[in-house]
């Protein structure tokens, strides 16, 4: 069986080291790059992200990676966004004003209602049948955010209750986003990350 190569999109934002370690532990080959030639040699791309929306999308644009990711999506190649990386998939965010996102998944990113923060471990509940998330339904993962995706229900795969419910996993074809950090969610996170990477390659 061919060893899967995961391309971590390096746009100067995000915690690449943790993601890379976890992927290596899972036996997956990793390349971290902002070079489309390198990323094109990967089976699936992972878009990490920690921080605020605006500087992140600006960093992607500054490296022309926004156009590259759109082009990959046109070619129906798989992409996984984590935390801020999931939010960047949306059409826009209202964090610190209005900012356009990649627009790969219809919907916008809005502030969570009071108490505004969602920091810690919470469960995900599957609201659409999806084999990628089936085994992880009801399990706890680590979240750290104050904004969340809001969009059509057809793209929402899992939801999480933080006082009010929000979409904690979204999907459009071979593009998946998770609001939590599977790489920092211990055994449950590793199992889901493997399922997502392998499943997206097979999808």
């Amino acid at each position, binding site marked *: 069986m061919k060893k899967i190569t995961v391309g971590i999109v390096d746009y100067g934002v995000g915690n690449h080291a943790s993601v890379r*370690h976890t992927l290596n532990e899972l036996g997956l080959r990793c390349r971290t790059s902002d070079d489309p030639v390198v990323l094109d040699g990967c089976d699936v791309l992972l878009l990490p992200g920690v921080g605020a929306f605006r500087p992140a999308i600006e960093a992607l644009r500054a490296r022309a990676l926004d156009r590259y990711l759109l082009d990959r999506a046109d070619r129906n190649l798989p992409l996984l966004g984590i935390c801020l990386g999931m939010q960047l998939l949306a059409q826009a965010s209202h964090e610190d004003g209005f900012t356009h996102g990649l627009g790969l998944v219809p919907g916008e990113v809005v502030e969570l209602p009071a108490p505004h*923060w969602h920091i*810690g*471990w919470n469960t995900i509940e599957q609201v659409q049948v999806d084999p990628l998330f089936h085994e992880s339904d009801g399990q706890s993962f680590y979240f750290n955010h*104050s904004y969340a995706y809001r969009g059509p229900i057809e793209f929402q795969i899992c939801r999480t209750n*933080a006082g009010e419910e929000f979409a904690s996993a979204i999907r459009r074809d071979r593009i998946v986003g998770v609001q939590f950090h599977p790489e*920092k969610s211990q*055994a449950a996170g590793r*199992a889901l990350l493997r399922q997502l990477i392998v499943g997206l390659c097979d999808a």
Partner: protein
Amino acid sequence: MLKKRLVGVITVRDGWAVQSFGYRRYLPLGHPEKLAENLDRWGADEILVLCIDRTRRNVGPDFDLLRRLGSLGLSTPLAFGGGIRTVAEAGAIIQSGAERVCIDAALRDAGVVGGISALVGAQAIIGVLPLSFDGAGLQRLDYLSGRSTPLTAADLSLFDRRVVSEALIVDWRHEGMTAAFDFNLIRRFPAPDVPLIAFGGVSEADQLKMLFDDDRVAAVGIGNSLSYREHAVQMLKRQAGGTSIRAARFVSDSR
């Protein structure tokens, strides 16, 4: 629902994990990365590494230690603090493998904290407040001068404006002691909407339960006693957590 967190706190001085007693006396424990590795294996909900000498020495964050921690491939969220003076230093900490930064002395510089917040997001910032209760009100300790002054509205403005997400309430007088946390620090904390992490003198399940029962408490930090008691993470979670905390796990659970 969001679970409350049991946080393993590693206090570091001169690059070594130490048991601290009120931040005045210290005993060496060993390599910080060994403690972090164990907390990760044992299922702590978060690991918080505090380098307590970096701010006083004005030498910036201990990036060597952070690199060593990063090389472990921890699968538990990591918060890292001590010595952060600039936006760039905070950004570099996040880039190096920590999910969150702990800001202590720099909390008094709203410009720096605002810049950090804009770069990494307020959810990634924990504000450190070393407090004591003098019978009349809360006092905030200034690490650099060693003096305590009344906690003021100005001390809390960054929390109120949501530039910083959580407050680490350090009971510095009881830190390193058994079952000694002063609950006045939580009960009398004047900003009810700020999520609190209680730390210092928490070691027993009944304390933990009382803290978790308080709506304002999002997490409880435990230092040495979490690392040096048999299956302390599992025991405390089982005895104190109820449904408010993520269930205790054993490595064998995932096999």
